[in-house]
């Protein structure tokens, strides 16, 4: 039934597959990075095309529309300046109080804005690739956010690119706190959602649950990966699980992982 060339081909593919699957983690990661680099020219091309399209759209925007946008931005800028002044004041007060209490000064985070290059092509991972890597000071474990809220954390870092594991992926568990009640839990993947990829589960909540829909979820800082106070999402609903032994809640993430074009990496 089977002729020799078939066995040879099967044997070759099986051998390569088994060798690759059993490579040491570091070597496999390096190989992945090298193979992934083959796609960099195409990603660069797409980035340039998008930039060109945006520039062209800007060229054809009517002058009146540009004027309206400029006015809106001026107003927004004034509002933000005011907020910044208040925030500076609060920061100085915070530092004074810290000094008075003898607390260690919390080091501020530096930021690095990165463009999203690609998503994980498999349906069962929530990850994306960004255009910054070790040369930009990135390392595994750094938090990744957007102005809306937490996105995930840096996982694998190459020289010029990095992989970000998104909130909701089983590899990215986030310790969070519900602001209104102070209850803490862990954000994990959402097992029952089909089309809404912004829903994740908030587990390890106490049995006597005070969490209600609409309440805000922030990072708690427990675990040391994510700094405390980053907005994450809003509670959608709650349910009792494990025969009433503990509770879970569904949380809708502020940042939509499927629409991300740019993200911000927080650098210590």
């Amino acid at each position, binding site marked *: 039934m089977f002729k020799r*060339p*078939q066995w040879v*081909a*099967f044997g*070759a*593919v*099986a051998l*390569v*597959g*088994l*060798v*690759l*699957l059993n*490579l040491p983690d570091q070597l*496999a990661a390096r*190989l*992945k*990075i*090298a*193979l*992934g680099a*083959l*796609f960099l020219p*195409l*990603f660069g091309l*797409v980035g340039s095309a998008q930039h060109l399209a945006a520039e062209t759209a800007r060229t054809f925007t009517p002058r009146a529309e540009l004027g309206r946008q400029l006015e809106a931005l001026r107003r927004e800028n004034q509002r933000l300046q005011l907020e910044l002044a208040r925030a500076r004041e609060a920061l100085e007060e915070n530092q004074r109080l810290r000094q008075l209490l003898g607390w260690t000064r919390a080091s501020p985070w530096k930021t690095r804005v990165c463009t999203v*290059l*690609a*998503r*994980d*092509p*498999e*349906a*069962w*991972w*929530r*990850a994306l*690739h960004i255009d910054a890597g070790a040369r930009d000071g990135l390392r595994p474990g750094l938090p990744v956010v957007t102005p809306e809220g937490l996105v995930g954390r840096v*996982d694998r870092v190459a020289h010029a690119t990095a*992989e970000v*594991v998104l909130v*909701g*992926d*089983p*590899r990215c568990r986030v310790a969070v706190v519900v602001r209104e009640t102070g209850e803490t839990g862990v954000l994990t*993947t*959402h*097992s*029952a*959602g*089909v*089309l809404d*990829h912004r829903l994740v589960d908030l587990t390890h909540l106490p049995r006597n649950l005070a969490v209600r829909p609409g309440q805000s979820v922030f990072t708690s800082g427990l675990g040391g990966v994510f700094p405390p106070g980053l907005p994450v999402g809003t509670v959608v609903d709650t349910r009792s699980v494990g025969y009433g032994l503990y509770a879970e809640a569904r949380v809708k993430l502020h940042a939509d992982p*499927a*629409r991300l074009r740019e993200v911000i990496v927080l650098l210590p």
Partner: protein
Amino acid sequence: MNSVRLFLVLGLAYLAVFLQAAFTAPQRWLGAPLSLLPALMVCTALRLDLTAVALLALCGGLWRDALSANPLGASLLPLYLVGWGVWRWREALLRELDYAQLILGALASALVPVLTLVVVLSKGAEPDLGWHTAWQLVVLTVSGGVFTPVLFRLLERLERLFAHPEVVASSYRPDREIKRGRY
């Protein structure tokens, strides 16, 4: 010609992996990314030899795993097994019919992710699985079925672009020529 066809298939595989990673509209609208590799494997197995099937499984699988969080090498065997199955029984299949291509593409698009998941789980990884995985499999199956006849046509056209033009047999026969004038 065979090497041209092989390079065409590998080029399409490279583009397929890139498109799958770079464009997220299907993920937003359908809840699952679309995968062209299984459909391409069916086309390759129906049109080319076993070497092409093995090379497509190796290159396509490696490229896909490189951009994914799968363990490196997880997609090789699933792709090859599906390609080999189609190649092995291709004489018994009505491969020129769209309907047959659609069914084969759908089956391959369902089998490849399932087998890949088995490999991923056997490596101890924890992928994001749940009810949404069933939906994602449905999307992959249906889209794979639809893409296969389309890819089949595309490959045919591309091959024709690189092939020598066919010699059209002339109706002229020198032995039937009527010669006029004196002999």
